[in-house]
């Protein structure tokens, strides 16, 4: 569980690195709903991208390489 939490945190740092730059322009007095939506979508789409790339990669490897 300890290790799982460390992995979770490492992933959140990773998402923050990409999604902060993509979604937050000038930090304002609160996180507006558009920015919140952007951050949540950014996490979702990043995971989609990871799955899509991992699947395609597995297919290529199975077919016996590039």
């Amino acid at each position, binding site marked *: 569980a300890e290790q799982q939490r460390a992995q*979770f*945190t490492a*992933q*959140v*740092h990773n*998402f*923050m*690195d990409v*999604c*902060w730059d993509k*979604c*937050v322009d*000038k*930090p*304002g*007095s*609160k*996180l507006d709903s558009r*920015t*919140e939506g952007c*951050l*949540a979508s*950014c*996490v*979702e789409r990043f*995971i989609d991208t990871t799955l899509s790339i991992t699947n395609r990669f597995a297919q290529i490897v199975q077919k016996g390489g590039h």
Partner: protein
Amino acid sequence: AQELLQRMTDKCFRKCIGKPGSSLDNSEQKCIAMCMDRYMDAWNTVSRAYNSRLQ
């Protein structure tokens, strides 16, 4: 929290400090405080989104 503080400092310094001057002026200090609060809000939003995807 060490890593969080370091990354937050790095992102907020880059966002809030244009050309570094002889001290943090008032608007830079405000920007850093807001940036930090928004970074922690964003961290919570991102954690929640990731967590709900894992369920």
